[in-house]
């Protein structure tokens, strides 16, 4: 009766970005909330 779902552990996105030297740039330039603010008028009300 017990259903077993194996889970895999992988490096996080943050960890990958850090290893590639891209974390600071990502956090500075790719913040989705910046996108939301700039294009807020494009989204439907609500």
């Amino acid at each position, binding site marked *: 009766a017990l*259903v077993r*779902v*194996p*889970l895999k*552990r992988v490096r996080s*996105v943050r*960890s990958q970005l850090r290893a590639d030297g891209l974390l*600071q740039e990502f956090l500075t330039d790719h913040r989705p909330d910046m*996108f939301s603010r700039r294009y807020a008028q494009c989204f*439907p009300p609500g």
Partner: protein
Amino acid sequence: TPSLRLGRYSEKIYNYMDAQYYGEITLGTPGQNFSVIFDTGSSDLWVPSTYCVSQACALHRRFRAFESSSFRHDGRMFGINYGSGHLLGVMARDTLKVGGVTVLNQEFGESVYEPGAAFVMAKFDGVLGMAYPSLAEILGNPFFDNMMTQKTVEEKVFSFYLNRKTSSGNPQGELLLGGTDEALYSGPINWLPVTAKGYWQIKMDSVAVQGMNSFCPNGCQAIVDTGTSLIAGPTNDILSLQQLIGASPTNIGEYLIDCVRLSSLPHVTFVLGGKEYTLTSEQYVRKEMLGDRELCLSGFQAVDIITPAGPLWILGDVFLTEFYSIFDRGQDRVGLATA
């Protein structure tokens, strides 16, 4: 800052930049495979759609509705805001298989727009939420609610075993639907009643550093969340906690610890239901290699989530790798035992 609006959270609090554990599901007939985060901090299921042209979708498996004979069109739109990304899509229903168990007519979202870079590097395709229905953005029953309704599990319980030590012979992690496995934990289970049925929210008695009752002295609220990797708490408390463990801030908001000092750092104890859950520095510090240099990062993170019951603490993977967690929808309680 996530805020409460008309009794609902206006924004999901998590970013999946730190998510580490995922598993496989199958959607449609014949089945199409996807890897998802099994997230007790949200209630929706979504995967990328074949119609999505965002960069993130191009790098992940996408659902092809026209190839599924069991697909049911819904047509309603949905949007989910996460801490570091948002997505838009359309809702659908189809047959879902998880670990060999079939759930019919599962509501889910087909994401058609995943802007920004948040999901581009993610190893997982989507997210499968396992919190209460009140947290769902997508109308309809969450996955485990459907399992209960369709009686595909005997017990209304699921549990998580998350292993931090990848080198051992044990599995890296396991989700058990319908019960627990005594081989994966030791000692008695400490049961904590759910205080608000949205997240898996429980009362925390206090947080102590090296035995000193430093934070949450009169009790506070915490959520048990497999969808975030760190332990989070109110900014003021976490900043003080970082000082107590000797963590220094970086210019991108992370906290570093001198790896040489690890053995001398204090224990941090969470008291839940009168029982102490102590993490040593080796357990609350995350180690990462940066070139040939080892980085030691604090496993604590400041996140302000204000609820009517007070600010929330989040017990994520840093906590859950040490303690086996059981989520009981039948009796609305969370169980913890030593993993």
